[in-house]
């Protein structure tokens, strides 16, 4: 957020900054709950997963912000908004349906399931956006880097959630791996806002070139 303000990019990337602000507030809240209730407590687990679900929704809107910047000239913002809300509602309904069938602890598992599914939906949407960037020959370097960083972050967390599902007993590993993965997005976005000028241009097809 500080880097975006310093480079006069706060309003242009409003939802990205909003997500970072939410992330900061959630981190402070988590620390307070952790200090008060302790790590193995149910209160911390509830707070962690519900704040994570809210953050994932925030990140989903940040992705929508990037979509609207890429499709800026096509004037399709209204359709994007409707599509995003429908997809978000659909994901929430799907998560509820899965939990309703397989578990009696609906409330505690819903946030986890919703986050996991939203990370995967976010990953697919970011991949589609990257495809659109290549197809439309989008050249704004900062925008390209923001999208690529978001894609790496979504895929890292989707893999992390999948691994947690596969091996729920390795809590000792997850408690270090998950925060480490959480550094990817702030670090990468900081680099993009600090190093890359808004006017900088780059051919995205060069990045995707493969050896023959």
């Amino acid at each position: 957020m500080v880097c975006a303000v310093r480079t006069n990019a706060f309003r242009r990337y409003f939802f990205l900054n909003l997500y970072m602000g939410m992330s900061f507030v959630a981190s402070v809240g988590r620390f307070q709950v952790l200090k008060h209730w302790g790590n193995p407590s149910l209160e911390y687990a509830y707070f962690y997963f519900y704040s994570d679900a809210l953050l994932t929704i925030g990140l989903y809107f940040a992705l929508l912000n990037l979509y609207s910047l890429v499709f800026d000239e096509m004037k399709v913002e209204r359709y994007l908004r409707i599509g995003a809300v429908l997809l978000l509602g659909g994901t929430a309904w799907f998560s509820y349906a899965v939990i309703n069938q397989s578990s009696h602890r609906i409330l505690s598992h819903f946030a986890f399931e919703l986050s996991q599914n939203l990370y995967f939906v976010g990953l697919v949407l970011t991949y589609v956006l990257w495809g659109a960037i290549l197809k439309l020959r989008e050249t704004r370097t900062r925008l390209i880097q923001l999208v690529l960083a978001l894609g790496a972050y979504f895929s890292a967390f989707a893999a992390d959630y999948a691994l947690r599902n596969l091996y729920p007993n390795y809590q000792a590993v997850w408690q270090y791996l998950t925060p480490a993965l959480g550094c990817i997005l702030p670090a990468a976005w900081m680099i993009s806002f600090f190093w890359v000028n808004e006017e900088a241009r780059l051919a995205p097809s060069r990045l995707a070139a493969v050896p023959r």
Partner: protein
Amino acid sequence: MMAAFIFVVSVVIFLQFFVFYCRSLIAVSAKQALSPEVQEVTGIQKTASGEDFNRVMQLLHLCPERPEDRKGIQAIGAYFRMLNFVRSTVAQLAPSIRTWTDSERGHCTYFAAIALERRISFSRDMLAQQIDA
């Protein structure tokens, strides 16, 4: 089964995004020219070689750190190690991949040299500020 599928897909896509992201960082630095003194210190004249990467990184660590470039350098370091792994495994079977990894490793070295250039000018600015104060 579903979780295993999501894990595999996510890891493949993560690697793809990671490579593209690192290449975008390298592409930004490739547009900048090295000053004659950094060329002399690093021994890089026009094209950089992957063999020089570790030496340039050692020079980089001798300079005072700039917090804003630390993560970028770490990302490129990880990308370089990944390229080394590909070079010593898959690239043994396909010469075209070996050529590609060699060229990418050279770009990583150039990125590190540009970071070195920035750190040197950062140190100079700090020194100038101290002298002024």
